């Protein structure tokens, strides 16, 4: 049971298809853990279906009227017949990459480690151990993921068991989803599936629990800036606090 969820606006933007792919990936990861949000997304998908269904009809007094084809909705006879002709080439069509990617959704990724969300299987085909990890200090390492997003840094972050990341603030919005292990900061403890958003200006000091390394998926809108004089300094009080929890 997760305690930290994306809010209704995140879920709506996700269902509507308006999030950048990197952020949509975070929601996809969260709902692979969280059945509650998964159900909400299904409802929001239904809402999308209804918006599409009622799109060119009259909605409660809005002035859009039926049967008035505009440039935006007109379907030419050539488009129509072209599409129908394509149906004759079904064998050809099923060979196209766009279609096969759908049916391959059932393929199990050859992950040996415990259940990474399926949405990550293409980016992490052979487990997190095989990624190129770069050390950012004694407790923290990072592995970039190739999502093609040029405005955001998409990466896995790994905090060693019991390790602390040091205080840092965010120049841009950071979205984090815990994948394995757990960590805590001044706001609580985060378990696999938990979804957090840190807006620019917010700072926190994540500490991994003692029993396991913590791996998180994170999407940063701008580089993080460390604020503490020595980032690897571990606050003894917080450490005791984590050990006791």
């Amino acid at each position, binding site marked *: 049971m997760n305690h930290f969820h994306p809010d209704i606006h995140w879920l709506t933007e996700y269902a509507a298809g308006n999030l950048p792919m990197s952020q949509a990936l975070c929601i996809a990861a969260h709902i692979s853990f969280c059945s509650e949000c998964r159900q909400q997304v299904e409802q929001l998908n239904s809402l999308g*279906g209804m*918006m599409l*269904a*009622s799109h060119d009809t009259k909605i409660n007094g809005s002035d859009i009227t039926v049967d008035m084809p505009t440039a935006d909705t007109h379907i030419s006879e050539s488009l129509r017949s072209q599409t129908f002709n394509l149906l004759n080439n079904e064998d050809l069509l099923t060979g196209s990459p766009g279609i096969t990617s759908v049916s391959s959704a059932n393929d199990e990724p050859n992950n040996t480690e415990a259940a990474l969300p*399926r949405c990550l299987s293409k980016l992490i085909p052979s487990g997190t151990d095989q990624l190129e990890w770069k050390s950012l200090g004694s407790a923290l390492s990072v592995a970039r993921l190739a999502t093609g997003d040029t405005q955001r840094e998409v990466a896995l972050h790994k905090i060693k068991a019991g390790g602390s990341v040091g205080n840092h603030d965010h120049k841009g919005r950071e979205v984090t989803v815990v994948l394995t292990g757990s960590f805590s900061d001044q706001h609580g403890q985060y378990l696999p599936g938990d979804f957090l958003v840190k807006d620019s200006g917010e700072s926190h000091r994540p500490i991994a629990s003692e029993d396991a390394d913590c791996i998180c998926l994170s999407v940063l809108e701008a580089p993080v800036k460390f604020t503490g004089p020595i980032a690897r300094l571990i606050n003894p009080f917080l450490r005791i606090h984590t050990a006791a929890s």
Partner: protein
Amino acid sequence: MHSDESDKPRTDDWSPVLKIIARDRDRQAFARLFDHFAPKIKSYGMMLKSQHTSAQMAEELVQDVMIKVWLKAHCFDSEKASASTWIFTIARNCRTDFIRKANRINTSLTADDLWPMAEEEEPFTSLHQRRIEKNIHTAVAQLPAEQADVLKRIYIDGKSHSEVSAATGLPLGTVKSRVRLAVSKLRTIV
């Protein structure tokens, strides 16, 4: 297949047509579905214009979506979703992949990775979901115009909350509260 809904058929219920397409590969049924949904999908694709592409993309989207509907009709499960919802999710995924390609985003990720098909869901979900689908239709029709308008901009025009705010001149907080109100109202009805 045997289940002919005992409830009143809805005007938007294209599920039986999709089932016929899946079972009989019936082209006339497909043509009917095409004529109904193609204009909606084209309009849905018009936002691609703002994504460094031409209006022609909207027509390509129509073709892509309708071909996928034809090829994947056998995957449609009326217990899980209405025909419109199913087609909406296909259109959304296709549109996302169009934007990705148009912007030459270099990644192995596709839309189908981001919106996994609901296959491993809880057994009770589909029954529940089916009831929701029935009621959501009524609920949407009853939404106040200003809430329906915001939802239309988000779902059809593909605008984020802040883009809706910029386009309408409404404060972001107002956009958010309209979404919140609309969704919570749908929830009390379903």
